[in-house]
């Protein structure tokens, strides 16, 4: 392989990987705080992209307004869903909330199809999607922006969780709901915050990846599946793990086309995932979640 082609594959893989990392982070924020395994995380991304499409293309809002608005819309939806449909299920156990989010995923997908139609849509790129020459390499600005923004956001969230009081409170609520309540941490509001953040970060992932492909009602699955696998590889709830897992999957996907029939690209991802999980069943960075069976 030529070095130039190699670097281009690496960049496009890493860019998609950054997005998967965002999906995994949003998912992890919800899971580690509320123990909800949110199957609809990818569909939050799809919804975010469609809302952004309406704001940008139909209402002609500027980009700096579109992104936060779309993220807030999806974040608020996530909070509402948690309040109404998930909170009554916590006492029944994780399986029940999990099944509820499967229902949510299909509801979102179908709602998108009803509102925006089954026809694919295009969300234009603000960073530009024609390649420019950088040090002799052809770089697509949108891809570079995806990578930079997702890594920056991951870093910011990491600081939020480790350095701020409210982030620490969220980790405490994750550790033991009852004790956190006794310590005066407002668990209800912490849960809402976790869902807002998870939904908003998920939406951002969808908005960022949308311009390199098409908007389709089922795009949530192509976002969610690698996102879950990334979260898993990194060890659920570990933020550095999610980033490394996401990048790894993006890069494997990108290079898989050189090895196998491109139509079977995703098969390589599944196989790689299963192989890794067989070697290391709890992921790479899951110290805090291990050995807690009682």
């Amino acid at each position: 392989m030529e070095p130039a082609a190699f670097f281009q594959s690496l960049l496009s893989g890493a860019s998609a990987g950054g997005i998967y990392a965002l999906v995994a982070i949003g998912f992890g924020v919800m899971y580690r705080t509320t123990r909800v395994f949110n199957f609809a995380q990818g569909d939050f991304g799809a919804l975010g992209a469609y809302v952004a499409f309406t704001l940008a293309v139909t209402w002609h809002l500027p980009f700096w307004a579109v992104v936060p608005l779309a993220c807030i819309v999806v974040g608020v939806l996530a909070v509402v869903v948690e309040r109404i449909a998930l909170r009554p299920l916590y006492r029944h156990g994780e399986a029940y909330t999990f099944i509820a989010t499967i229902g949510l995923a299909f509801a979102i997908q179908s709602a998108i199809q009803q509102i925006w139609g089954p026809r694919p849509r295009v969300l234009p790129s603000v960073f530009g999607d024609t390649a420019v020459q950088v040090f002799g390499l052809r770089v697509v600005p949108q891809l570079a922006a995806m990578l930079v923004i997702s890594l920056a956001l991951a870093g910011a969230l990491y600081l939020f969780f480790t350095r701020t009081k409210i982030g620490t409170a969220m980790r405490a609520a994750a550790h033991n709901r009852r004790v956190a309540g006794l310590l005066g941490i407002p668990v209800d509001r912490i849960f809402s915050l976790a869902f807002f953040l998870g939904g908003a970060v998920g939406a951002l992932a969808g908005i960022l990846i949308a311009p390199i492909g098409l908007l389709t009602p089922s795009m949530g699955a192509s976002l969610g599946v690698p996102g879950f696998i990334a979260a898993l590889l990194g060890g659920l709830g570990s933020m550095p793990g999610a980033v490394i897992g996401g990048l790894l999957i993006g890069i494997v996907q990108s290079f898989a086309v050189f090895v196998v029939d491109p139509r079977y690209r995703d098969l390589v991802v599944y196989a790689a995932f299963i192989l890794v999980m067989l070697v290391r069943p709890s992921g790479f960075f899951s110290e805090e979640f291990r050995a807690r069976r009682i």
Partner: protein
Amino acid sequence: MTEHLLELRNVSVRFGGLQALDDVSLTVPRGEIRAVIGPNGSGKTTLLNAISGFVRLARGEILLDGRAIHRLPSHRRVQAGLARTFQSASVFGELDLIDNVRVGLHRTDPHSLIDAFIPGRNERLSAETRRTAMDHLRAVGLDTHAASLADSLAYGQQRLLDFARAAATKPALILLDEPTAGLNSTEIERLRGDIRRLRDLNTTVVLIEHHMPFVMDLCDTVTVLNFGRVIASGRPAEVRADPAVVASYLGTRGAKP
């Protein structure tokens, strides 16, 4: 057949930086009722979890009847003759009481999957395990509720049901995690009789307990844990008089040996 049914050799368990069990060695002779006491966080439940395979040992070994069990998964330890109850009520809520105990009979029930599909054979084997299960329920005084769902029981009754399920596995060694918590005085009396009866049937008992009169009356030997270490062991009266034990309960740190 070894003299000591249960033997722990230099067992250590670590959770991250926390040393939950620190070089614990103890032996429990066959047929004894042993209490493990100690302040909260002293490692009592971790000890039971280590013996039953819910936490991994950092170091040491555990022998049941002379056989090393610390590498076996939990269910294999049960097959080797171990049973336990849990600290919080631990029942199968959507099953009725009979079926809860029949789960405990799993190991001894000869009913295969094929048997289930042979008309007549299924009914007959079921009738037999139901009768055995009923006996176990009668022992803890729950036979009148046999057809209710376990969810519908009061907390104390659920704990007794958990005990009945554990006893149904016909264990050589049973671990009881705070068996009297949540029970009223009548239920405690009954439980005391049940534990004695279990011992008379050749079962060795290790229990964690905070209820001191219960321990002093029932148990042959008491082991005291503090900060994950054994600080005393002996007859109930001796242990009660031990200054180190008194100090650990009053919170004097200088008492660590």
